[in-house]
């Protein structure tokens, strides 16, 4: 299979505030990319813009999937076309059982032309598959009956997101800090799970600050985001460098991007006050 996700000159604004200022990125099916960068540099924004969050307005540039321009598509169309994002802070949907949610989601994603009201994947077949995936990811089966992300611990939420990714088998996955808030063992498990589910089976864009999540997922490419732009791209060694030494070198090398980053942070504080 050969699929390509191409981001060209992407500009994104939230509430009229410019955040991404010309991001270029090309990912092929089967590749692993790491996306690093200091807080507030725009990593999550990139992911949410690709996933189609309505508040993240694309003001310039394009996103294409296998040559098709998906820039204007609704989030659900993108999901059905094979785009997935594991969120940093997934929301809870009270009263909706995880199994029911995943069954409906998997049906829609696997049958992109399904009309509303048409049959879902047969219950037995789905249960069997879900159970298998849950045991593969070492997730307790009791999980399926709990409401979507409702009352989940940080670790449980992240694992639920990986389970969702496993059930939807997307072409491209963006994992937004799937390691944050997890202890060392949990990060190891997450890293191994991502490798098991995703490696060579999709394109992976792993947003992270650390190299732990990359342990089982050595990236072919590492990108550094600063001030809403990708300022540098390298291989696995770049991820290691940033993990060991932080972003000082990057900040000094790209003063304009650093200034933009500081400006965004300042606005953020002004809003927070």
């Amino acid at each position, binding site marked *: 299979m050969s699929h390509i996700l191409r981001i060209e000159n992407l500009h994104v604004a939230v509430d009229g505030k410019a955040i991404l200022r010309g991001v270029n990125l090309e990912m092929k099916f089967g590749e692993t990319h790491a996306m690093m960068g200091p807080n507030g540099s725009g990593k999550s924004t990139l992911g949410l813009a690709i996933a189609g969050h309505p508040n993240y307005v694309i003001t310039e540039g394009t996103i294409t999937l296998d040559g098709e321009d998906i820039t204007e598509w609704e989030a659900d169309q993108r999901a059905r076309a094979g785009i*997935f994002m594991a969120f940093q802070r997934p929301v809870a949907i009270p009263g909706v059982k995880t199994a029911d949610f995943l069954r409906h989601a998997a049906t829609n994603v696997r049958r992109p032309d399904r009309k509303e009201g048409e049959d879902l994947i047969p219950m037995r077949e789905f249960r069997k598959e879900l159970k298998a995936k849950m045991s593969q990811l070492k997730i307790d089966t009791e999980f399926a009956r709990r409401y979507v992300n409702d009352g989940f611990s940080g670790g449980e939420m992240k694992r639920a997101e990986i389970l969702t990714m496993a059930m939807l088998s997307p072409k491209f996955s963006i994992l937004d800090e799937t390691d944050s808030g997890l202890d060392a063992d949990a990060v190891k498990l997450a890293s191994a799970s991502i490798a098991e589910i995703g490696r060579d089976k999709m394109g992976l864009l792993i947003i992270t600050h650390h190299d732990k999540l990359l342990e089982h997922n050595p990236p072919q490419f590492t990108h550094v985001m600063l001030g809403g732009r990708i300022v540098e791209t390298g291989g696995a060694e770049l991820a290691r460098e940033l993990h060991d030494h932080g972003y000082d070198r990057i900040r000094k090398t790209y003063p304009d991007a650093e200034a933009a980053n500081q400006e965004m942070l300042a606005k953020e504080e002004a809003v927070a006050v």
Partner: protein
Amino acid sequence: MTTTISRNDLAGFNQAGFNQLLERRIDPVWITQARKDAWAAFESMGWPNPRDENWMRSDLRGFKLDRYQPIDESETQSVQNAPVRLIQGVDVGGSLRSENGVVTAESLDPKYAAQGVIFGSLSRCARDHAELVKKYLHSQIDIHVDRFAALQAAMWTDGYFLYVPKNVVVDKPLHIHAAMGDGKVDLTHVLIVLEEGAETTVLFESTSSNEDADGFHCGGLELVLNARSNLRFVGLQDWGSGTWHFAHKRASVGQDANLQWTIAAMGARFAQVDQRVALVGPGASSHVNGVMFTRDKQHLTYNTIQQHSAPHCTSDFLYKAVLQDRSRTVWRGMIKVDVGADKTDGYQRNDNLLLSDNARADSIPGLEIKADDVRCTHGSTSGRVDEELIFYAQSRGFTRVEAVRLIVTGFFQQIFDRVTIESVREALGVAIARQVRQYE
């Protein structure tokens, strides 16, 4: 057309119309007298005062009583196409059907009849079982409370009477369907009496011949639970979207008796429902589950009272509403604890989910406590549906309307968890899904 002729012959809801009703009916004398008293009460009262607390948020301006004609119950009533939803796949123990407020079909499993269960037309039972009906009819509802209560007591055309004798268990659900034609009226009364230790389930639904049917429903409902009896009562109101719905609903729960009451409101353009559950014997308990789902310019008002008159009683009311378009709901909750009703455990909650900026949900909880050592809690929430939830579901492949439907279903789940009858959960789920609009 024969309907045109009979319309011209019939007077409206006025003195002449009332006289005609008395003439054509074959009621026992005590009922005729009760009707006359109620009519006098109706005549002496004005329409509800907009300054009255229970009515101040209700806009009655569009309601014109003289647009409707009383039903001639001596004529054959026939309402086509009014859907039945609550008993898909259910083996019922008996059923009643009314058309335009006149019972047209009655059935009861002979094994229950052999045990003394009575289930039938209220007009007929008032003649055949006069002592029983006389004892309980309008025993709970104060006909002077407003003009609608008085009108209903004076001019009710028929209704549904259920009597379950001491310690008899009716293990299959009993079904009642009230059907109303476009532009017609339904003045019915539900009277259910459970003697000591009796047990049953009643599924009640009211629907119209077409979705946008006009109509006037003015109803009464009385549930009498004697000691240690157990009643599950489900009511689904799904009148056509042009219907005016007025009802007084009362329950009286005796010692250690238990009432589980699910009340779902989907239809009608306007509804004003006064609901009171009185806990009259020690250890009585009642759970009320309310579901409202509104659209267009619907305006539904529920005034609920949990009346604790005896010690050690429990009441638990949970009302959830989802509102779309320009619709409006008003929910008033009041826990009243009388002197001596110590160790009361009262709970009430109303949660509202707004799917539109133009919808409005008013929630007015209240407590009136005159006893000691009680535990009463209440709360309410109202909020716009969270766009982040919609995005999350969309990012997993749900269309926007599927996402909204999912969130709405999840919102009602807490109620479904409390409804112990599977067919009812399913019917409500379907009714709710149907109600969600296609959004752009």
